[in-house]
């Protein structure tokens, strides 16, 4: 057991730190809130990393990965969080990308991986349906083979950023008679195909991140089927395992705690910083300790992964604890800003230019951020489902 960085690793850290400092765009540094980003801004950092060759550190080298060690990847994530770079979209890089290079054929790899790496193709996730949330296997979208293509009918929901998407990876039933897990196939669908309608869902914080996607007689070429027909559930579960391991968000939570402390330094209680109030600083310490534990749990998982184990069902721990910590930090941040938590900060799509958002800059949008982060315990397999996974797969109950 050894936690210290080698001289080479320290040199690597200095290198990536300098790269971020020199290359992270001013335009993104100037953004006040994340919700306001345009499509181009969301992709800006992605394209810079693509040019540098650092866009997919977790991919195998043959497909465009960096060949970094687990420690180097850890350092990279830490440095990105430290510099508060905009998060990269997971749909291509972390979700469908690994499915394609693991289960796709050579042609599919050639056709789709370059667009994921360059950012030219924006992907969205066609998993959940109105009737199939936690019980994903009960989905009802149907794909029927007709000659050299499939006809797909159904609807998907909670589709994040589908309003910008070029492609959707989509689960659909291909065998009406088999039991759910043997009836599902995994398709790649061009969002420009006739018959696809995207309808926005506004969330309680006022934002537009998620959508409903309706599919009506959508014609999908048979070559866009991943792997074998009716084996899609295997690929879907593989993807969900990856989704969970990325979900811990340790480095970002560290940064969020740092921001929380700065806010608590600026906010006053009877003329003294809120941070000096024992009852408040104790709460920050508690969440910080939880986060330290999670950080080491994640490092243990990564270390096991580097020896070819996992990510197994243990990754559910990262999802549960990671989201609980993220939620707790936003809750404490809202608490810290006091009265100004009342202020509604309009989202990009609502702006007219005349909005008035009073209070310190750090307070703007904190209540909405707290409301928005309630989603984390619901998406990616709700935290209740994650408990079931651990109970069944780890404890054998």
């Amino acid at each position, binding site marked *: 057991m050894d936690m210290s960085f080698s001289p080479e690793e320290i040199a690597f850290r200095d290198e990536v730190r300098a790269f971020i400092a020199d290359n992270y765009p001013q335009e993104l540094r100037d953004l006040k809130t994340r919700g306001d980003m345009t499509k181009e801004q969301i992709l800006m950092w992605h394209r810079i990393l693509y040019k540098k060759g650092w866009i997919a550190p977790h991919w195998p080298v043959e497909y465009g990965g960096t060949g970094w060690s687990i420690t180097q990847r850890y350092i990279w994530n830490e440095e990105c969080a430290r510099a508060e770079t905009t998060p990269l979209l997971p749909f291509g890089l972390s979700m469908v990308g690994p499915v394609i290079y693991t289960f796709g054929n050579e042609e599919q790899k050639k056709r789709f991986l370059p667009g994921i790496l360059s950012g030219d193709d924006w992907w969205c996730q066609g998993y959940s349906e109105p009737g199939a949330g936690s019980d994903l296997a009960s989905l009802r979208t149907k794909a029927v083979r007709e000659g050299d293509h499939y006809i797909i009918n159904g609807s998907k929901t909670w589709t994040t950023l589908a309003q910008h998407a070029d492609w959707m990876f989509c689960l659909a039933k291909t065998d009406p008679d088999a039991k759910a897990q043997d009836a599902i196939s995994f398709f790649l669908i061009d969002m420009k195909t006739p018959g696809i309608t995207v309808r926005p869902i506004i969330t309680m914080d006022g934002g537009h991140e998620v959508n409903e996607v309706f599919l009506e007689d959508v014609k999908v070429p048979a070559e866009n089927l991943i792997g074998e027909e009716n084996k899609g559930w295997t690929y879907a579960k593989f993807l969900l395992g990856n989704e969970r391991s990325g979900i811990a968000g340790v480095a970002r939570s560290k940064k969020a705690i740092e921001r929380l402390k700065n806010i608590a330094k600026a906010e006053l209680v009877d003329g003294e910083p809120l941070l000096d*109030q024992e009852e408040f600083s104790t709460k920050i310490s508690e969440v910080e300790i939880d986060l330290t534990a999670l950080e080491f749990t994640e490092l243990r998982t990564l270390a096991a992964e580097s020896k070819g184990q996992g990510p197994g069902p243990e990754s559910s721990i990262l999802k549960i604890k990671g989201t609980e910590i993220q939620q707790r930090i936003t809750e404490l941040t809202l608490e810290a800003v006091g009265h100004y938590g009342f202020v509604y900060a309009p989202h990009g799509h609502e702006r007219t230019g005349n909005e008035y958002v009073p209070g310190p800059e750090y307070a703007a949008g904190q209540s909405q951020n707290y409301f928005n982060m309630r989603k984390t315990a619901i998406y990616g397999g709700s935290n209740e489902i994650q408990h079931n996974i651990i109970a069944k797969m780890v404890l054998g109950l």
Partner: protein
Amino acid sequence: MDFSFSEEQTLLRNTVQSFLQDKYDFDTRRKIVASDEGFRRDYWQQFAELGLLAAPFSEEMGGLGGGAIDTMIIMEEFGRHLVVEPFLETVVLAGGFLREGGSPAQQEELIPGIIGGEDIWTFAYAEPQGRYNLADLKTTAKKDGDGFVLNGYKCVVLAAPWADKLVVTARTSGGQRDRDGVTVFIVDKGADGVSTRDYPTVDGRRASEITFENVKLGADAVIGEVDKGLPLVEKVTDQAIAALSAEAIGGMKELNEATVEYCKTRKQFGVPIGKFQVLQHRMVDMFMAYEQSVSMTYMVNLKVEEEEAERKKAASGAKVQIGKAGRFVGQQAVQLHGGMGMTDELSVGHYFKRLTMIDTQFGNVDHHLKRYSSAA
């Protein structure tokens, strides 16, 4: 010992309920929130006609002679419908100041405007540096002949965009956080030197930042005694906490009912999700949090007229209970509704947001835990 309501109180509840059932369904509320003005002036008039704005005032003041329990009933029903109109600000807060501290002349002049629905009021007390300390004031009122000159800044003044008149706290002597030297004033929102900037709040209401610049006030603008206003402010805000507790239990009741209903009908894995024990126990915890909050709401409304130490403990205790319970019930109602709970379309998120912000009003859980300890 009797926790039942009188015939008059039951009648009052029925009146409020039938009005809101007819005219304040969730879609109507959504339209009200989205409208330019952000509240319904005609509804405010109807509240006056129904006697709601008169309920807590004594008969001598032209009211119906109800008390805290009547206010509690109205606020609980308002909480169930997420009513945005400024009942708390006008009737409970400004009305409370006039009732508890106003001179007979002030009462005679100003209470009829509240009862009749002509005047909307709010209470401007919060300042950015002051957080929840009601005495931490940078706003000053300096003696000027017979009257005062008011200067300062008040933040997040809820309902101020709708208000005609303001109750304002200012320092007339002493240091920034001294208990002595606080005075309560009546200020016309339209007076020279008062400027406001309005904005929407996350819970569907409106608020203003208010600047006072050399606002001239007469001696008759003072409510209660000069320099001795803090005990009055504490008493009236404790009454407001009692009313807010009632609003909160109204919201929690709706969330719990909606959640149980959803879990009975939403099917996953071939069964209603309410069949899963982990969710059953969660809903039982939500139910218990609600019941404990109802108890604390009754307690504080029964004790809000008691002597100071007892009243403070009651109010702070209730505020801690509804702060914690509101957070738990709100968060779990969203969680058990899954993605649907996150949407703007369903009412669940709107109750959750309101319950969240109730914790911020007049001091959050931490603030009231401390206040409770120091009063105990």
